[in-house]
């Protein structure tokens, strides 16, 4: 039982970053703008959270510093993601290419800045104050379930809440309706008075900021600092989670949990003798192979927002 309970807990720990990044990707793609740059936005979030939390820590802000780190990652990545927004919306750059550029820029500029700020060091100093697991009173004491679900990092609780909020906003509010309309049929949305490009700007900028929370999560919970390989491909997994989850927040969360599970299994299975004989590489490969199998087999054709990838010109109906 303990193993299962730990497995669920581990799944949530690993999934949190994916959930944030996938939610970010989903918002942008729902508005019709592809976001391959999720990886770069996660890098940006990881970088800003590490630097800001480090300075807050040295300034003696104690327990406040990881919170400042996570807020800083959100705010500063908004500036970074506006590059993707302006390029794709205002200048109609190829959205995939712009996303690739975001990834290149994020990787190179953060590495450059880390060297600049920390006098030639290739990574940021290790933080002493990071998030700790928070046990929810009462609920956390329930046997099995308590350890599995209610003894987690604050970021996990935020991520799950965000899934619910975003689901509600997209499917139950006027803004959500407009967002979907802009991604499905911008011409029609424009006709009824929705400002297509303004909506897209909001979506893309928010997309980067939310993805940045995923990067910040990794730094402020498990890693404790920022290095060039802190993110190493997790943004691409999140991108897969968006498609796998069929552009639906709940679906994206489930897909993220699935990827998290594939990672957590690796940790938990090593207890067993039979699993120790399976080469580690196969566990690393598991999430990607499973994604391919599910995409090819069970899910069938995933339907993307209709106007995904198309720049919108006012008057094109």
């Amino acid at each position: 039982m303990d193993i299962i309970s730990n497995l669920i807990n581990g799944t949530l720990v690993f999934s949190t970053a994916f959930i944030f990044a996938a939610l970010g990707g989903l918002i942008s793609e729902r508005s019709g703008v592809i976001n391959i740059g999720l990886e770069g936005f996660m890098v940006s979030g990881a970088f800003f959270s590490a630097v800001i939390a480090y300075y807050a820590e040295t300034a003696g802000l104690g327990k406040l510093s990881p919170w400042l780190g996570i807020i800083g990652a959100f705010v500063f990545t908004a500036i970074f993601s506006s590059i993707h927004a302006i390029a794709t919306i205002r200048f109609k750059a190829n959205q995939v290419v712009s996303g690739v550029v975001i990834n290149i820029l994020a990787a190179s500029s953060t590495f450059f800045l880390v060297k600049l700020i920390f006098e030639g060091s290739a990574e940021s100093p290790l933080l002493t104050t990071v998030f700790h697991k928070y046990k929810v009173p009462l609920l956390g004491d329930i046997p099995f379930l308590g350890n599995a679900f209610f003894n987690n990092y604050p970021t996990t609780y935020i991520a799950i809440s965000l899934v619910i909020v975003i689901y509600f906003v997209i499917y139950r509010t006027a803004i959500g309706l407009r967002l979907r309309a802009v991604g499905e049929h911008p011409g029609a949305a424009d006709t009824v008075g929705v400002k297509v490009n303004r909506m897209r700007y909001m979506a893309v900028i928010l997309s980067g900021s939310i993805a940045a929370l995923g990067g910040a999560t990794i730094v402020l919970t498990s890693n404790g600092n920022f290095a060039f390989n802190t993110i190493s491909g997790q943004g691409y997994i999140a991108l897969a989670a968006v498609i796998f989850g069929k552009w639906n927040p709940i679906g994206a969360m489930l897909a993220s949990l699935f990827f998290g599970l594939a990672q957590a299994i690796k940790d938990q299975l090593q207890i067993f003798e039979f699993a120790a004989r399976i080469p580690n590489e196969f566990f690393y490969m598991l999430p990607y192979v499973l994604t391919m199998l599910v995409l090819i087999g069970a899910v069938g054709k995933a339907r993307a927002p209709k106007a995904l990838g198309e720049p919108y010109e006012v008057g094109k109906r």
Partner: protein
Amino acid sequence: MDKLMSIFRRESAVIPVVSIIIGLLLGALIMLIGGYDPLLAYESLVTKIFGSSYDFGEALRSIVPLVLCGLAVGIAFRAGLFNIGVDGQIIMGSVGALLVGTKLSLPAPFHAIVAVIFGAILGGLWGALVGYIKAKRGINEVITSIMFNFIALYLSHYLIRYFMPQAGTQRSAMIQESASIQIGWLSELMGGARIHWGFLLTIIAVIFYSIYLNRTKWGYELRAVGLSPDAAEYAGMKVSKVMVRTMFISGVFGGLVGTFEVLGVFKYIAINSVTSGLGFDGIAVALLGGNSALGVLLSGMLIGALTYGSQGMSFGAEVPGEIIRMVIGFIIFFVAAPGIVRLFFRPLFHKMKKKV
């Protein structure tokens, strides 16, 4: 119509050139803000490339993978496919070459030839698989090729660790000398720079790319599918076949990168936690070169030289070489969004159009 074409041609050459200039200027600006000397930095970049015959040779050999990656991305682009999976195809190519290079025993030139062919085909099949899944199941090639990059990475780790390990190290065994494609005498002449036959094959690949696209029936189909898959289908072309075929060729280019790096440069594979990222550079090369053979060759030379030269920057001017990655990012960015370049140079373009 001719006039229209001449504007198009002139602008299509102007945009990349202006983009390169703005990119380098932006890089200089960032260096200034960081408190570095950009002139010294760029000077040491150029010195690094042309400083010695060894460096020049090494710069030349670092151009090879970039040109091939550019061709790989470019040919897929022309068919309307976005091959973000070149990294994985490179890995499969290098594993194939390594397998033949370490396990097989053949006389000298044949061993290398078999290794190159095997690696190239393995890379091609890895690419074709992505094309097949797209053609049969309609699954976006971007997502498939990203997944396949990771699968290739871990698969290669497994194969190296269990079949070709070098005891006590994080890398594979060395290939047999008979599988080497290094050009011994030229390498000696250039102070030990790792020049190899892949250089010649890359030039042949560029020529092949041009002829295939522009002079063959398959190339015509490829371009037609790229312009409009629906129209191509109506015209009786087998779109799915074209996709698989194109991704195979794209994968062969990627596979060649891997085989050349193994057989001509490193002689082994190191177990890295991340892919080389060369495939992403290929996107830059293809885009900057406008997906044409000559364009890819030129832009591959530029980006290869910049990347190689950037190693000299930290030594000569204490500037982190990553700044060049940023410059490359800026350049692609401006090429992808020519509107920004036009905005800066609106007056200039205005005059140009008036003259025409």
